[in-house]
């Protein structure tokens, strides 16, 4: 496990202690413990639940990237469906 500092909105900020503690002192960061070996893009902090969230938890970096690609492709399909529905709704009006 490692120490990591998030912004007050839960976004990844820094792993550097000097920087993180200075931000903490100024009320601009949240200190949390995160799993080792996780790239920062996969990390966030749920400020309501007060817990670290790991994207594609349980997977390694390659698996997380693959998940990222899968999720993006799914989003494209969802977008397309929404566009079609919006257009149909517009024509019906």
């Amino acid at each position, binding site marked *: 496990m490692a120490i990591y500092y998030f912004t007050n*909105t839960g976004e990844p*900020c820094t792993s550097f202690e000097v920087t993180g503690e200075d931000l903490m002192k100024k009320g601009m960061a949240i200190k949390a413990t995160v799993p080792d070996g996780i790239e920062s893009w996969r990390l966030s902090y749920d400020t309501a639940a007060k817990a670290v969230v790991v994207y594609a938890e349980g997977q390694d970096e390659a698996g997380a990237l693959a998940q990222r690609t899968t999720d993006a492709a799914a989003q494209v399909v969802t977008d397309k469906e929404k566009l079609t529905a919006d257009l149909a709704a517009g*024509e019906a009006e």
Partner: protein
Amino acid sequence: MSNLSKILGGSTTTDPRKEGLPLFGMWGGSSDANTQMQFRVFDSNFRVTGSPWGAVDGTTTNYRFGILADASHAYNMKDHGTDFHSNLTTEGYSSWTNYIKSLYQIDQYPHCFHYTASRDGFVTWQSYHQFTSSFEYQVGWTKLNQVLPEGVRPRRTFTNRRHTMREFMGNSDCNCDYYTYTAHLIDPSPLNYSTGTGYNEKTKTLVMIHSGDESGNTSKSIHIFKSSVCLNEGTTRIKDFFDNLTSTEYFTDTWTNQNNKDWCVVVGNNGWVGFGLKQSNSKRYGVFDCNVKGTGVDITGASRQFETWMDFAGSTTTSYGATNGHQYYTKFQTTWDGTWGMIYSPYYHYGVGINAFAMSLENPRKFININQTKSGRANPYVAWGRTGFHGGWSDNCDSEVWQTYAFAFDPKDTDHTIDTRVYKGSTSGEGAMPDNNSLVGGDYANRTGVCSLDAMRTGLHGGTQTTNYPMLMGINWWGSYGKGDASYGGK
């Protein structure tokens, strides 16, 4: 206050290069880039600056609707296909149609890789034919980083490679001036490869790095040229600058660098010079005293350096720079008023998020880290307002307003011994204008402080009715400074 107060008045002595406050374009299109498409140009107050023309909703034609100003000989209306929508997560330089959204798309020059866009709302996409042999794609990294007066972006394009400076017309592949300065290099063992050059117009100072190669060689020879002639003066040739040198000094050093094409050189008004680059997934920034010391004095880097090299202190992950393709060279931009600059590269892969050092252009020893950790839906960053920057938030905003990552500095904040103040926005009015006396933003420690950017709402919709993923675009000309438009000072 800066000279912003003069913006409505102007004067007959105003520099003809001086522009009004920054504009930006916002492109919105449906996911197939077919049935809906809109492009608008906004000022820094998020007010539209041109007549809303050419927008299309619900058509079934595949053509470009008249929004675009593509050259009549453009070979195919589908040059850029439907890929304005692409996520730009892992897509690389072989996926040019995705790369258009990259943070790497724009630097401080008023032109960019993939398009030109006028403030009236005309966009012309560059053709993909021969794209990989274009000036920006191959040798954009040789352009000078310039510190210029308030409201001025580079209007002449100077490059430096080996021992030769050239002038180009914008980003065309034709040069119009040439000068080999080998005779002016005073390092007794000059290195052959120019790999980063900065120019300060106020002090007429040119600082260039020479390295042992154009890849990872760490040997460095830095020359500092001062002239009585301004390089950017309308009729000045490069030779004229060197013919009128008032001082030439150099120092040598060994600098860690993954790829020499990434170096940016920021020549401060006070004679201190910041050198920065993307270094693997991180960045490095160091500051050296390039004031006149005398012949043969302080010819080592150690004798001139401010403290030590600073590694990026924000959050990093896998990201790509010049070592992955020379077009991914580290970028440099300045605020409209020319008081703050930013050396930057993406946080994630080929152009998403931002990792940056922002520095005072009066005193480059004053610098902080800028951090934003998106992993999809990229956008370039451009100057915003008087003393700030913003980059777009291009997640789909068909059900909420468009947001930017906007932030601003204090133009008088030049003391590197005190924290740097950054002003930020919020996703709510109460957040931006709270019912208390607290600062909306933060004060960040010099060198080690990290400012993580927050999204703020603009009140703009995404440009089309659905699934729009808006794209922020640079604009060639922000309008002549001092003209009638009260919003941004230009027209």
